[in-house]
């Protein structure tokens, strides 16, 4: 009884947040599209569903998301292992670097990918091969963006798994692979499923990557929703497409819940610092170097292209694009963004969004730790929904709902971090939940029996165990906020542009200077992201010896 009350108390804030900033705006905009003069028009559903073009788009959307997810897992799981189990110089830096793609604007990344795999690109020069306008370019770019999701979510838990269990299995006669498959894999299951789910949802709503690298012949549901809403203002069709998107995402969430349900078990968690060691033997060294090679080819090469371009000035290499940022000819214009201002805006929004996501997501994760009935599982799934819903749907929903006091937030500074936190919360929940659920419930019970209050139990039992997950989650929420563009460009006040918004503004204009400055700002964005993540890594190691 008391536990239920506590749980409801914990859930109150996440529920209000979710209802106000997601459910209500989305329901309002979908409702407007599906009603006519107060009457529901469900006939529209069947009309749109009967369109073979739409079915084709839906099919391609699901297919490319599934393929991207599979490929990302395939490429990134060995990476997760390497980061979890091996100690090597530069590990923290490398872990920060793989997260950098996450924050880059798709239009910038698209351009870097074209320079590598497109016409006249590196691949073309070396072997005469081109991947642009093929589905491979889309899939590779999705791996580029989502590598960190797998490495950080799975690696986070993996590094805290006690390796002695696998060793025990081997002592008892199991082969190396059998031991891994029967001991480690089941323990990792929930984290792998969580990572797969997030990658799927991200790629399911992919927009810029598909358009830029696939060319205009590929279209996803997200693109269709954007066009119907932002271009044609055909709200009925957009509403039907949003409902389809919803149904697909809900189906996926149900599948995820079903696969994970029986897998999440109490695990023996240990200090991450004790599980990592220097690679031993040829096989482990090969794995480490293989992972580094994959990271360099797939993740670092596109980043290097951007950095090189930011220094390739009109008169040879130099810093002209950096020194002219926000100064010179356009200084008197509202167009000019002082780079330090954009940087400051990005950091301020990022800090606020991270704080909101941690509080909301943390409370939700704490409440959902003990598996409950169907309703709890439903809530768990609902918190993931914002990842699978179009930014333009949420943005237009904000416009028609958050327009009256006391919630007149349309032009408020807070709308941006709130919208960004909506995407950050699922990351916080998904990173923390597997770890929280792995904590042995008997520890909590023992503490409670000894007279500790629920708050104290959480602080003294759960918190030390999840500190690592909490920091990973914070890193994600911050990176999401730093890179978020779809909703930000829509609602950000022009006097507070973020770095990605400033990049997009520059890219929208002709001229070498604008293009170079866009590359320079993108490089700045990378450095800030890597710096912030490194700082978080430092925090992480401060208190690692507690359990």
């Amino acid at each position: 009884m008391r536990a239920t009350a506590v749980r409801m108390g914990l859930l109150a804030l996440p529920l209000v947040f979710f209802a106000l900033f997601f459910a209500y705006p989305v329901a309002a905009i979908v409702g407007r599209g599906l009603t006519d003069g107060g009457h529901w028009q469900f006939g529209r559903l069947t009309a749109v569903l009967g369109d073979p073009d739409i079915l084709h788009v839906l099919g391609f959307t699901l297919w490319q998301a599934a393929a991207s997810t599979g490929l990302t897992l395939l490429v990134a799981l060995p990476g997760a292992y390497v980061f979890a189990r091996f100690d090597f110089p530069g590990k923290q830096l490398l872990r920060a670097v793989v997260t950098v793609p996450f924050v880059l604007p798709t239009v910038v990344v698209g351009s870097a990918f074209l320079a590598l795999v497109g016409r006249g690109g590196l691949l073309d020069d070396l072997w005469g091969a081109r991947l642009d306008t093929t589905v491979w370019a889309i899939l590779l770019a999705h791996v580029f963006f989502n590598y960190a999701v797998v490495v950080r979510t799975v690696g986070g838990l993996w590094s805290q798994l006690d390796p002695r269990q696998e060793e025990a299995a081997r002592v008892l006669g199991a082969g190396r692979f059998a031991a891994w498959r029967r001991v480690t894999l089941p323990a990792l299951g929930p984290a792998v499923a969580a990572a797969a789910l997030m990658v799927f949802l991200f790629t399911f709503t992919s927009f810029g990557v598909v358009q830029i690298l696939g060319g205009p012949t590929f279209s996803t549901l997200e693109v269709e929703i954007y066009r119907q809403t932002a271009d044609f203002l055909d709200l009925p069709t957009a509403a039907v497409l949003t409902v389809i998107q919803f149904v697909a995402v809900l189906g996926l969430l149900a599948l995820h819940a079903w696969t994970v349900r029986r897998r999440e078990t109490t695990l023996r968690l240990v200090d991450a610092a004790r599980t990592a060691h220097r690679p031993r033997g040829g096989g482990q060294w090969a794995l480490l170097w293989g992972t580094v090679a994959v990271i360099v080819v797939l993740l670092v090469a596109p980043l290097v292209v951007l950095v090189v371009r930011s220094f390739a000035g009109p008169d040879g290499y130099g810093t002209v694009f950096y020194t002219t940022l926000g100064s010179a000819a356009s200084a008197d214009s509202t167009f000019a963004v002082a780079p330090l201002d954009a940087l400051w805006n990005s950091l301020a929004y990022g800090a606020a969004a991270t704080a909101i996501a941690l509080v909301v997501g943390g409370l939700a994760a704490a409440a959902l730790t003990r598996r409950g009935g169907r309703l709890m599982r439903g809530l768990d799934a609902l918190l993931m929904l914002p990842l699978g819903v179009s930014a333009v749907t949420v943005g237009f929903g904000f416009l028609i709902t958050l327009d009256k006091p006391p919630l007149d937030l349309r032009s408020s500074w807070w709308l941006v971090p709130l919208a960004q936190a909506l995407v950050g919360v699922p990351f916080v929940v998904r990173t923390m939940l597997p770890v929280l659920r792995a904590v042995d419930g008997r520890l909590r019970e023992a503490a409670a029996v000894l007279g500790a209050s629920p708050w104290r139990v959480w602080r003294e039992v759960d918190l030390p165990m999840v500190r690592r997950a909490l920091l990973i989650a914070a890193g994600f929420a911050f990176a999401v906020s730093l890179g978020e563009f779809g909703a930000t460009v829509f609602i950000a006040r022009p006097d507070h542009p973020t770095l990605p918004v400033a990049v997009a503004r520059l890219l929208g204009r002709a001229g070498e200077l604008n293009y170079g400055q866009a590359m320079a700002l993108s490089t700045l964005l990378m450095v800030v992201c890597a710096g912030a993540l490194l700082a978080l890594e430092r925090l992480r190691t401060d208190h690692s010896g507690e359990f």
Partner: protein
Amino acid sequence: MGHTSRTTTRRAAAAVAVAAVTMGGLAACDSSGGDAADAKTVTLVSHDSFNASKSVLADFEKQSGYKVRILKGGDAGKAVNQAILSKDNPQGDVFFGIDNTLLSRGLKAGVFAPYQAKGLDTVPDALQLDKAGHHVTPLDYGDTCVNYDRAYFAAHHLAPPKTFDDLIKPQYKNLLVTENSATSSPGLAFQLGTVAAYGQDGWQGYWKKLKANGVEVVDGWEQAYNERFSGSAAGKGKGDKPLVVSYASSPPVEVLGKKPEPKQAPTGVATGTCFRQIEFGGLLTGAKNEKGGKALLDFLLSRKFQEDMPLQMFVNPVRKDAAVPALFTKYGATIGKPATVAPETITAHREQWIKQWSSLVLK
């Protein structure tokens, strides 16, 4: 079992209660919003491309006593649609940036309140598309045209194309890159130009020939111009297409900031391939600061703002008496007869034309 179902019910009830309280709270504040609009602030709602000199805006603020707040709502289409969706409770007082391809939609939705801005008599009749109602005021215009790379055509001893007809000639095979009409505004403008030139029955035939002549379509202007066009400085000459759908103002922008100033822009404009976009502004229906909004509209049409505009947004002023900067006169092209399509016709056929174009060109 019994225990589980009881707690579940309780939880469900609590969740519903939370949701109901939240929704109820929202419903309760419905329309009671009496936030006294700050009579000292006037809010301009626009799209991403709106820019002005800070000093020019400051002048207006000083003279009128109003502080200008600017809100930008994504690209032009998005910004207009946002204004339509929020017309019962507008975000600001004045909207800047609805063009002739979207105008009818905005007028039909009743987004704008009539007001005849000061100085309208200096604007040519051809630009005043709402002369009867004065719901919107023309504020700038610009043309979307095929740009060509001078170096390429000089090196190949080939005369650059001038008209739509030229683009389907064999000597220009595989040279043109354009943008997706469905996702890009210059792409759509180019398509509308062909509709104007060949009529509602003829444009599809023209595009079949253009496709046979190897036109390439990419998603957006950024890729077409920065990545594929060989004439843009951003592409460092690595682009493979010497013809691109861009703006009449792109050549001057290529020269901007170059020292020493070149004799000629590196790119030119095929003047017979232009489609004219006229941008309008208007007082929003239900503006909280109507008086300030009117003053702001007058200012947007004033010579001072009109002369500041070309180098801020790379568009042309609508006032006949506004001086155009030397950069434009020296490096820009004069478009004699741009193509136009009546706004009502565009609104009526927009979606259908884009659909037809997509299945014709992309599939």
